[in-house]
């Protein structure tokens, strides 16, 4: 029904337009333009906005191009009770709108009117829609399943770790060097500098870094060397103070904890880099830890640290910054190794268990890639296998 009326409007306008185009002299066209109606919206489509919390209808339309241009467009809506209302006025040229003010389960009629000189010129076809709320994003089901399975596997291994299952962990050079680095600082009577990245506490790399800070703080407390932690975020400073203090208490050296050593500098990326560079050249730390999220300042910090002769242990999951750490630091924790650090340093069974879970998840993805590539490749010659690859691609697609 709607389509039919749209078609009729379109045909009418088309007829008017083509009749006009046949008129040869230009002066006639200008005269005719005055008789012409203001151009109207056509092909209006209304549908429930997919995958939302409801109360929303998406509208799409096109503009007729023959006719003179309206001053503005109005989106009209009527509900079953018959009440008509103008829900929004839009500038000419707009071709889509989302009505956020609808009620779920109500059947609405929509149409778009063109205003010209303050009066309604023409109006589009009517289109109806019933808004509703959805309980799941359909395009994310595959991801939900994989994520759930992974979480289950990781938690399973954590539990089995807790139960005392013996778990192996491979050598991670950067972490094996932590003791040496702290020990060296103690021998030289120089401080240890710990940089937890430049992002805030909501960043998971910062969280991982703070956990490692706890382990490093325990070592500096045991060895009796001082630990400096300049931070770029207030929240990180607060957490770092808490963590370091706790570490010193656990080792039985609460007296050695110095709150002033954990200080905030500035939220500014390069202001922070300038401040930390200053600390490096003046305090001359013997060991520097650069663990967390880093951006361009990574090399500014690492090169300055290098120039004061410190042992540097860096780690980040930012792919773009790893090369600079590799070039300027003695040890670099690459990507996932940063997240494995707390388990490695503490050797706690439940944390080692979570590493095992991560490995299982990686294995799953490796198998997925290999099966996907093999089936896609063979699928080029023998089509049934192509659908396997298609299925796998679909599984990991998130919309």
């Amino acid at each position, binding site marked *: 029904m709607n389509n039919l009326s749209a078609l009729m409007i379109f045909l009418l306008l088309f007829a008017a337009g083509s009749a006009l185009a046949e008129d040869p002299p230009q002066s006639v066209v200008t005269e005719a333009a005055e008789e012409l109606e203001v151009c109207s919206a056509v092909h209006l489509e209304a549908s429930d906005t997919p995958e939302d919390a409801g109360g929303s209808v998406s509208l799409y339309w096109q503009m007729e191009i023959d006719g003179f241009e309206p001053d503005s467009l109005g989106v009209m809506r009527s509900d079953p009770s018959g009440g008509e209302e103008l829900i929004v006025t839009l500038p000419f040229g707009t071709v889509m709108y989302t009505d956020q003010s609808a009620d779920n389960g109500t059947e609405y009629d929509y149409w778009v009117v063109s205003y010209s000189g303050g009066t309604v010129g023409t109006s589009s076809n009517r289109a109806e829609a019933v808004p509703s709320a959805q309980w799941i994003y359909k395009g994310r089901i595959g991801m939900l399943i994989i994520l759930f399975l992974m979480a289950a596997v990781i938690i399973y291994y954590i539990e089995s770790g807790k139960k005392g299952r013996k778990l192996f962990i491979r050598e991670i050079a950067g972490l094996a060097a932590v003791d040496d680095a702290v020990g060296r600082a103690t021998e030289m009577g120089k401080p240890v500098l710990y940089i937890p990245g430049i992002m805030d506490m909501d960043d998971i790399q910062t969280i991982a870094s703070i956990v490692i800070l706890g382990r490093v703080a325990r070592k500096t407390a045991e060895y009796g060397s001082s630990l400096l932690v300049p931070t770029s975020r207030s929240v990180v400073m607060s957490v770092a103070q808490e963590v370091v203090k706790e570490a010193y208490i656990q080792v039985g050296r609460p007296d050695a904890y110095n709150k002033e050593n954990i200080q905030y500098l500035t939220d*500014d990326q390069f202001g922070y880099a300038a401040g930390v560079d*200053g600390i490096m050249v003046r305090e001359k730390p013997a060991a520097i830890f650069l663990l967390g999220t880093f951006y361009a300042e990574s090399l500014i910090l690492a090169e300055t640290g290098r120039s004061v002769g410190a042992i540097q242990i860096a780690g980040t999951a930012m792919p773009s910054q790893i090369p600079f750490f590799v070039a300027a630091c003695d040890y670099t924790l690459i990507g996932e190794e940063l997240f494995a650090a707390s388990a490695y340093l503490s050797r706690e069974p439940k944390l080692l268990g979570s590493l095992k879970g991560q490995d299982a998840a990686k294995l799953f993805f490796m198998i997925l890639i290999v099966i996907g590539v093999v089936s896609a490749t063979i699928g080029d*010659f023998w089509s049934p296998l192509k659908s396997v690859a298609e299925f796998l691609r679909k599984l990991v697609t998130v919309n």
Partner: protein
Amino acid sequence: MNWEILGIWLGALVTLFLYSFLYRDNPFYKFAEHLFVGMSAGYWVIYNIENVLIPNWWQNMFPEGGGFDWVWLIPGIFALFMLARIWPKTAGLSRLSLGMIVGVGAGLNMVSFFQTNALAQVKGTIFSVASGGVWDIFSSLVLVVGVVSGLVYFFFSKAHTGIMGKTANVGITILMVAFGASFGYTIMARLSLLIGRSQFLLEDWIPTIPRLLGIGG
């Protein structure tokens, strides 16, 4: 006094002060560094007030048309808990805010990293290696082998010996080639920054010197 020229001079002086660090630490650098830390901290406080606290909190709590939206008391209370750290007696309250911050961060990061870092990358690696010429096939194989062996390198719960060790070796090798390429590629962007600063000094600042001395235009 011409404000524009003063601005150029201020900018040029702090630029030169900071560059002096390349020679070694010195009073000029110390001055500029301390100034930078202080001024940028002040800048970010104002930035946070103007761009977050007022529009996202205050104006939500007290909407323009009048009224009061109690929901926005919640973040206000959490923020107060955070600030309660100032006094030792109430410092424990900040843990509640930290709990919230870390919870939001952990939940958000988990899904976004999983989507963009894991699934999207896996998807990009599932393709047919049999298209194009010999060189294309070779390239595709390097890509797939690189990703898979790179992942083997990250295995923690198995010793890197035997076939596992060999694959992990291939992985770390490809990682090294990748890091080298990435390093070499970035140099250009870094030089552009230096070119920008040099142009500021040479083309904006130096021409003002004769003008200040009363020579030339």
